[in-house]
Structures are given as C-alpha cells and as structure tokens.
C-alpha cells in the first residue's frame, strides 16, 4: 500500500497532507501549509516553469519523508474549472442530455470545446418538472500538467478534485453534513472569498467574490460582512424555492486560509450559528483543512 500526499492550493500557501501506509492500515500522519516556490497568480499557476518548481517542492517533501511508493491527490481551486448545471425535463433520455450539455458547455466555456475534459457528475437536483445535472469542465492542459508533475516525481496519480469536493469530504467525514440539512462553507482566502453551497448533501454552486478593500488597501470588514450576508440570504431563498429541499435551515461553516486577521471574528460575531473549521492532526493544530478533506475516504 502506498503513502498518499494530498496537495491543495490556496492563494497564500499550498497545503500538504500525508496519509502514511502501515502494515495493516493507513493513517493521517501530518497536514501542513507550505510556502509557494513562486508568486501565486491564478493566470500563470499552471505555466510550465511554475509547475516545474511545484514538482520540485513536492519531490523534496517525498524525499524528506523517506517515501518510495507514493500516490498523489490534488485539490484545485474551483477557479480552474467550469461547473455548470444543465437543466433538462425529468424524462429526458441520455441522448437529449448529451446534446443539451454539449450545447450548454460549448456556449459557456471560453475557447474550444475540444480543449476541455468534460465530466458529468452523479449530482442531480430534482426541481419538479426539471432535473439539473451537474457538469464540470477542466482544461486538458491542466490535467496534463498534473500528470507531468506526478511522472516527474515517480508517483501515481490517485485523484483530482475541485476544492468544494475536498471540503464536502471533510464535512461529511466529521458529520457536519447531515441528511436534510444544508451548508454554506465560506473559504476566506488572500484575494477571494469562495462560498460553497451544499443542499441536501450535494454540492450546488460556488459564489466567488473578491475580498473587498477600502481606500487604504485594507480589507473592508463591513463590505466583507455584506457579501457574506447576501450569499447567506440568497442561499436560504434558493433553498426555499427548491422542491427537493426538506429543510431551509442553513449552517454556515467558514475557514480562513488568508493573511488577514480579524475576519473570523467578524463572522463569529454576526452569524450566531457560524462554525470555524479547524483541525488537529497528531496533536498539532493545522489549517490544512482542504488537503485533509482531500485524502479522507
């Protein structure tokens, strides 16, 4: 049985979780945040030069931990993929679904359709007369870069998720996602706020907002709170409209991987049921929630 590295990317640091394989079992051995070997910019993240440096950084960790047989799992920010729900009548056959999805993805994606790997997930939302099927599209160049990295460090590629999947895994594993309930997970990062909405245990969509700044360039706490309230209220309103939602109760979870202090307190002080996600691995406090969720089965 091979060791597993779970690698997640935030705007501030990259995260590494390590599942150590023993004779009989595998355990979560460590989870840490590490500095990027290059400046983080979304547009240039998967440039060959940058990702070659990333490969070296992962290789160093592999050698440092004395691992010979290694599986790699990656959690990518949702910014690197396109997620779309395709609405179709409930009695649509597979051919109709495919045709509609082809049309929707070809009009939704920038660039050529052939450059993307498009995946139909198992996530289906029943809206009465319609069902919404969730599709994801990722540029093949990104997949190739990840494959190249894995090959460069002589490892095996186990899985590639988007960040909302890693968080959902973490919430499910820790029983935060319960039947009939809904969750809004807010990931506070350095430049952006991502709010992932889960309805009835299924991922629904993500709100992405730039972290609001005031005239001095500091984070505007009031604007930040307004953004959160808006998404929270919109999510509740959306849940009420969905016929398949058993409850309109919405639990807010948040996690701060950014560099700005004080935002956690803003959330805690204004949302009574808000819960800050933290983790302890081997008695060590860690913020690498996403990387942990990635490797939990």
């Amino acid at each position, binding site marked *: 049985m091979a060791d597993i590295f779970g690698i997640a990317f935030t705007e501030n640091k990259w995260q590494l979780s390590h599942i150590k394989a023993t004779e009989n079992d595998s355990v979560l051995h460590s989870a840490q945040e590490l500095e990027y070997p290059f400046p983080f910019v979304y547009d240039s993240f998967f440039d060959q030069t940058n990702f070659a440096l990333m490969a070296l950084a992962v290789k160093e960790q592999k050698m440092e931990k004395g691992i010979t047989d290694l599986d790699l799992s990656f959690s*990518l920010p*949702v*910014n690197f*993929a*396109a*997620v*779309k*729900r395709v*609405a179709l009548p409930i009695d649509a056959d597979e051919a109709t679904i*495919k045709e509609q*999805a*082809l*049309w929707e993805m*070809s*009009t*939704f*994606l*920038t660039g*050529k*359709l*052939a450059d993307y*790997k*498009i*995946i*139909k*997930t*198992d*996530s289906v939302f029943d*809206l009465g007369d*319609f069902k*919404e099927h*969730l*599709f*994801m599209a*990722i540029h093949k160049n990104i*997949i190739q870069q990840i494959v190249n990295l894995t090959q460069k460090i002589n490892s095996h*590629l*186990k*899985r*590639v*998720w*988007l960040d*909302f*999947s890693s968080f*959902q*895994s973490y919430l*499910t594993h820790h029983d935060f996602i319960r039947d009939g309930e809904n969750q809004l997970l807010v990931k506070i990062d350095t430049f952006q706020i991502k709010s992932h909405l889960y309805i009835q*245990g*299924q*991922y629904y*969509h*993500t*709100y*992405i*907002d730039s972290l609001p700044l005031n005239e001095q360039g500091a984070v505007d706490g009031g604007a930040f709170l307004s953004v959160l309230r808006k998404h929270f209220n*919109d999510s509740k309103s959306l849940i009420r409209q969905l016929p398949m939602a058993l409850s309109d109760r919405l639990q807010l979870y948040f996690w701060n991987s950014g560099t700005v202090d004080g935002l956690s307190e803003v959330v805690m002080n204004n949302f009574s049921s808000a819960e800050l996600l933290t983790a302890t691995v081997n008695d060590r406090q860690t913020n690498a929630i996403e990387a942990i969720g990635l490797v939990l089965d």
Partner: protein
Amino acid sequence: MADYDLISNSDYFSEEEKEKKQEEVPDLQPSPQTDEDDVFAKPESEQPPEPEPEIPSPPATEADFSEDVQRDLPMDEVPEQAEERVESTEPDRADLLEFIEEKQEGINYRPLIYIALVIILLIVGYFAVSKFLLGGKESAEAEEAVAEKTKVEQPAKNAPSPEELKRKEFLSSVAATVQSNLNLLTNLSGVAGKKSRITSILLYNPDFLFQIFAPSRAELAKVNMNLRNQFSQYKISLISTEPRPGTNGILGLFKVDLSSAPPAAGGQQELSSLLETPQKAREWIDYLATNSGIKTKDFRFKNIGSKESFAVYEISSTITGSLSGCLAFLESMASSGKNVSIHKLNLTAQDQKTFNPKKYQLRIIFHLYAPSL
C-alpha cells in the same frame, strides 16, 4: 457523495463516442468528412474550408407562356392594298371623262364631273381602306375574345388537385411556424434591457431556451418581470440561475413553452417563390446575410428523404456578425415565406467573457422542402 473526480471520470464527449455516432448515421449523399449530424462536433475555427459538392443544376423551368399568342396582321400590307384599289379605278375614270365630253355642247361640265369623280373615288377608297383595316382589327378582337375565353376556361380545367392543395397548405403551415418562432425570438432579444445581455438562444422545437447575463440578481429579476409583462401570452419560466465565476454577475436560463405560442396568420402564411434546390437556398441565405451586414461562414446540405412529395434537404449554416445583424437576418427569414422549416437554431455570444454584442454566431439547421425534380 457524488463522484466529482476529474481523473477517474471519463470525458462525457469522448472521441470514441463521437466516432461511433458518425458511423451510425448514414450519409445519403456524398458529403464532407466531418459529421454533418453534429453541427457542434468541432468548433468552426478548426474546420478547414470544405469543398462544396457540385449541385447538378435542375433543368431550367421555362415560364409558362400563354397559348393565346396574339397575332396582328402586318400593318404595311393594308396601305399597299389601298393603293392598289385607287390605281385600279383610274382607267374607268378616263373612259367616263371621254364619254362626257362627246355628248355636251356649249356647257362645260367637265370640271364638275372631275370633281365629282374625285370625290366619289375618295369615298370609295376610304371605304375600301377602312374595310381592310377595321376588318383586321375586328378579327383580332374576335380572336382575342376567343383567346380570353380559352384562357378563362383553362384554369377551370387545370384546378389544383387535392394533393397539390395539401402540399401548398403544408408549406404555408411550415412558413407560419417559422414566422411565429422567429418573431418570438427577435422580440425576446429586446427584453434584456441595457444592463443585461442575452448571451445565447436555442430553438430546437419544441424547446426554446435562452440565457441572459445580468450584472446582479436584482437585474435578472427585472428581466424576469419584463418577460412576464411583455410576453404574458407565453409560458416562460426561469429554470436555473448560477453565478458567473469571477464576477458578481449571474446567468439566468429561461425556457419558453412553444405550445403556448399563438400561431401566426391563423396557422398559414402566404408563400413567396419557392427555393427549388439547395443552391438556391444558399443564394437566399447569402442574400439575407449580406443585407443584414453579417457573413456566412459555411454551408452544408444533405438529402434526408421526402415529405408530402417534396424532396427534403437538411441544410446547416454558420453565420457570424453582430447580435443586431443576426437578429435582422432572422427577422428577414421570418417574413420571407419560403419553403423551409427550422430544425435547430443556436445564437450565441462568441466572447463569453464580455459578451461583446459585435461578436455573435448563428448556427442554423433548416429543412428545405424542394419540389421534386
């Protein structure tokens, strides 16, 4: 938890499935190598310009000339005959003059006689000339009356058969549907307002879907209200919304129930001249595109069988230009009254980041009902 793995899940539109689909659909006519069933198989920028198959030109159909070809007597024959008549009376006149001179003594009636004779001859000549001229006109008028009578009788004899009436009604109904749907499409395009933008339209009977990008949920709600106010006779519903990644904007997907649309002109539309061949259809499309300030990028066709004694061709065309140009093109198509039905129509913004109104693409697949050769 649903399966969201980007590695273990296969590509939903894999090449193997595309090739399998191509094999299953037989081409009835020689056509380019790309799959003509799947207009979206490859983005148009990758498609090489394909040589169009030569279309055998149909035998020229001559206009039906009326059988009542009028024949007028040549005008120049009549004056000659009149002249001949005048000349033939001259010898008689000379004899008369001599006889008159021998009998009378003292009184010279000769000038009077001359004058009288001239007058008589003129009168006779007038009647002779008019007889020939008027007689030709009368015969021509008589023939014309006969011809008209014949003409009136012919339509009665060639009354359309029930089959021809049925074909005509079929084409009229098809044209009415095209007009109704395209009018709805062009009218809906104006509902977005200044702040929002229509980003894509799909017309695939009976489905009519359109997507609008709004800068906020409030603006999308305004669009929704405009739809309800302006198109209350249609069943239009907002079926999904989702945020546009990286912006505060929101995309709203609307569906129109075409069965709720009122038919145009009582379900029938007057037809204009028929498009007889795919080549004629191409010329028509190019003409509409040029007039609308947009450009035809490609044009393909294939025979897909027959219906109501018409040869049916499936024609696909990609047209690019501004949104307003594309809508003008569709408006022209709506009122053209041609023998075509729209199988599928997709109007999308080529720039999916800014939805630039100058860069739109119209992909249309329509069926041409050509008179059988």
